[in-house]
């Protein structure tokens, strides 16, 4: 009986049953009505040893074509940036890895201080004054922002740009009926949002959400969009790429009240879409409407600095049905990876990384020499016309060992020939040349 994860011996069990005053394990379950007891073993695959499990899962892993096995230009929300070794070294420390949420501050100063530092880094990136300890991902934090804005403004509508990541928009729409919110999408014009259209859609809206750089990789006229939103009395919400914020202006510096985003690119591996983290930051007057954990600084009775979970009266375990959110477990370890990564980069590294991305996109334009889908400047993704089905081109290019990008027609009817190509510092100029060569062959 038992696995290597169980420590009780037969003798232990007998002694324990005696101490409890029962004669068998079955007696411990006497309170379960007989007709509800499962009278058979679970129909699960036979128990396996560690060696066998490793063999079995390694075989499954090897059936996947990961980014090390093809030259990949996939992005569209999740990016193959380099994850430095120090990140894995830190997040595999068992004191971080195996801890629960820091309910007992005296035993959790490590995690609490790290979250405080994380909050600061997120505020610095976004130009905001308060950040929470993380949300599930870049999509759910958008729903969180809607909930905050609905309560802050008392309005019942959300305006969201069509150039926001489709998955983010889908999650907002899934949450909206429960919040009693109507969602209006603002169509793009030439790959970006027209501020006048954004202003019109923001009338009566609690929040107006745009993405910078947007899903097409284009730079929006973000300050104009923020002005349009706030001009209509809505909270301006920017969904941003954290790694763009060395070269692109911070949302808090051009009039947004809330900044959100997907943190994956900062120190988290692709992992087939998760776990990653979402970040959410805001101006200070919104602190009591924020969902999730917030860490604050305080002192102990000897005057030493320490950190605690704070403003907990917003939260579900205190406020129950009147809470700002139901969130408890968030993405601490992924956010910690984000903190370590951004600390590894530092200010100069972040700026240099951003310049590398824009430079690579420039090279991409030159090397591919394909008609651009949109005229607006790009950060690290470029949408190009292929003149034929992008899905077909992807399949043909993959046969030559290159995954050339994401077909935008999957989400945008009418864009069936548009390919979204992403670069990161892991793609070299030689890689881009190879992409151009393969696309040239496929399109010839």
């Amino acid at each position, binding site marked *: 009986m038992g*696995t290597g994860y*169980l420590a009780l011996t037969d003798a232990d069990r007998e002694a*324990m049953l005696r101490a*409890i005053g029962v004669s068998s394990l079955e007696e411990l379950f006497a309170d*379960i009505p007989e007709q509800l007891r499962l009278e058979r*073993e*679970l129909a*699960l695959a*036979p128990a396996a040893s560690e060696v066998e499990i490793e063999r*079995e*899962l390694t075989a499954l892993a090897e059936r996947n074509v*990961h980014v090390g096995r093809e030259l990949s230009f996939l992005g569209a929300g999740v990016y193959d940036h380099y994850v*430095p070794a120090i990140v894995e070294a830190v*997040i595999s420390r068992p*004191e*971080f890895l*195996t801890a*629960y*949420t*820091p*309910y*007992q501050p*005296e*035993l*959790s*100063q*490590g*995690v609490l201080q*790290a979250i*405080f*530092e994380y909050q*600061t880094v997120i505020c*610095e990136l976004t130009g905001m004054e308060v950040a929470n300890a993380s949300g*599930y991902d*870049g999509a*759910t934090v958008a729903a969180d922002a809607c909930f905050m804005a609905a309560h802050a403004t008392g309005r019942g509508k959300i305006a969201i740009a069509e150039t926001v990541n489709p998955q*983010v928009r889908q999650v907002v729409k899934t949450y909206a009926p429960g919040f009693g919110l109507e969602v209006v999408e603002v169509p793009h014009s030439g790959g970006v949002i027209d501020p006048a259209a954004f202003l019109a859609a923001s009338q009566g809206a609690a929040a107006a959400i745009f993405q910078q750089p947007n899903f097409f990789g284009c730079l929006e006229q973000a300050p104009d969009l923020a002005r349009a939103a706030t001009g209509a009395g809505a909270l301006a919400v920017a969904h941003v790429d954290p790694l763009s914020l*060395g*070269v*692109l*202006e911070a949302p808090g510096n051009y009039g947004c009240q809330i900044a959100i985003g997907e943190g994956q690119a900062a120190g988290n591996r*692709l992992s*087939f*879409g998760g776990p*990653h983290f979402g970040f959410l930051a805001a101006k200070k007057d919104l602190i009591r409407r924020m969902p999730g954990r917030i860490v*604050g*600084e*305080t002192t102990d009775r000897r005057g030493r600095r320490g950190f605690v979970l704070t*403003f907990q009266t917003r939260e579900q375990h205190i*406020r129950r*049905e009147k809470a700002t959110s*139901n969130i408890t477990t*968030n993405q*601490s370890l*992924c956010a*910690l990876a984000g903190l370590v990564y951004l*600390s*590894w980069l530092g200010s100069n*590294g972040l700026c240099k990384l951003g310049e590398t991305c824009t430079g690579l996109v420039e090279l991409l334009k030159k090397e591919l020499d394909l008609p651009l889908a949109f005229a607006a400047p790009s950060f690290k993704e470029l949408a190009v016309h292929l003149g034929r089905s992008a899905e077909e081109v992807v399949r043909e290019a993959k046969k030559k060992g290159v995954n050339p990008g994401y077909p935008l027609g999957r989400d945008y009817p009418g864009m069936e020939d548009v390919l979204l190509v992403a670069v990161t510092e892991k793609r070299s*100029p030689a890689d881009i040349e190879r992409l151009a060569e393969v696309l040239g062959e496929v399109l010839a």
Partner: protein
Amino acid sequence: MSDWREEPLIFERSRPGRCACSLPHYELPKATVPTDLARAEAPRLPELAEPDLARHFSALAERNFGVDSGFYPLGSCTMKYNPRLNERLAALPGFADLHPHQLPEDAQGALELCFLLQEALAEISGLDTVSLQPAAGSQGELTGLMLVRAYFQDRGELEQRRKVVVPDTAHGTNPASVTMSGFELQPVKTDARGNLDLEDLRRVVGPDTAALMLTNPSTLGLFEEGIVEVARLFHEAGALLYYDGANLNAVCGISRPGDMGFDVVHFNLHKTFSTPHGGGGPGAGPVAVRRALEPFLPVPRIVRGKDGGFALDCDWPKSIGRVRGFFGPFGVFVKAYAFIRVYGPALREMSEAAVLNANYLLARLKDVYELRYDRLCKHEFVLSAAQLKREHGISALDVAKRLMDYGIHPPTIYFPLVVPEALMIEPTETESLETLDSFIDAMRQIATEAAESPELLHEAPHDRPVERLDEAAAVKRAIVRYEFGESAPEPG
């Protein structure tokens, strides 16, 4: 007195011009961001060389306590050992470096793993079908209630069915999820045995009831003895039953929520299935449902095609939509699946050991701490420090803090709310008898100290990096980020 040194904030260790990173240098064409969109002033990220980065986070790790540091009987959180094999497997390049937009035909191994996990969870829950998408337990709850909502909307009953019944012992997430999904909360009481109060329940269940949200065993660690009658009551009223899987560790392979009459279940893979909690996530909160609710599950669904291959299926017009990006926290699925493979059909041995450990602690502690509901427990139980409070002015908080001096993480305290000065204790199955005995010794010793030297408890903990912290001051001062411009503290 503790001799911990303060670890400066990473910003206080920062010096302009230092940098840990090394990035490739490419010869690239010049690209400029339009001036009105360009960053005017760079964000002040920490500037450290890598050795100091390593020391900083090492110092922070040392100031934290995990399951590997010692016993962690935090009630309802199921702090069991996190097998290291699973970390290694989730980090395999074929999983960790797989892009979620990869074509399904080039991600068959990952999709198959998801499919196998779905099948295993369906079998464990006794329900028909599973979505892995929700990111955590509370999102699983919310997803479950969205499914209930969609189900009644489809039947034209949503206007009528506004209420979700939640017992007073429930986790705070339950009522919060009720509000977020647009329902109204209908609380019900707990009876003298710690079960749902059937009289109260009969009074509140009616044509306006949408669902019951129940944790079974409850947060008191007690199996709901009247569950068959409770399920009948709700189903006869046309309502659904929702199972909060936070306490599933008590009953795996022993009794299945689907067999109990539940229609929707959420799992906490980071509790029952051993995936590490990471200091507050990532978790994973898959949901399982009865066939009647399947049309409403989140998309994309992961399905097996006729050719035996695995595919993404979005063709569910009644779906609630997406609750999170992509397919869910895949890396967590790898770990949970590997864990289930270790036990296989004998998964009940896990729950049996968890329940045995809890009952052993209960039997050896109930003479020194009050026990409100004196029954056999399941995977956890709730003691009360109310007597210590009356007689010696010692609170549950004092007991919790003193446990730290014994190298033990405290139980969950002041929850559930129906027990005053609550100490909610969940040992899990992975603890040895010696560890359980040392906890018993510590708890009994603390009860003695409460009478003989209460100041030891009031002043605890004694050897941690900080003593008790002023939480009211934290709210008042509202310092939630580092303010630049302050001088760095003196070293040492």
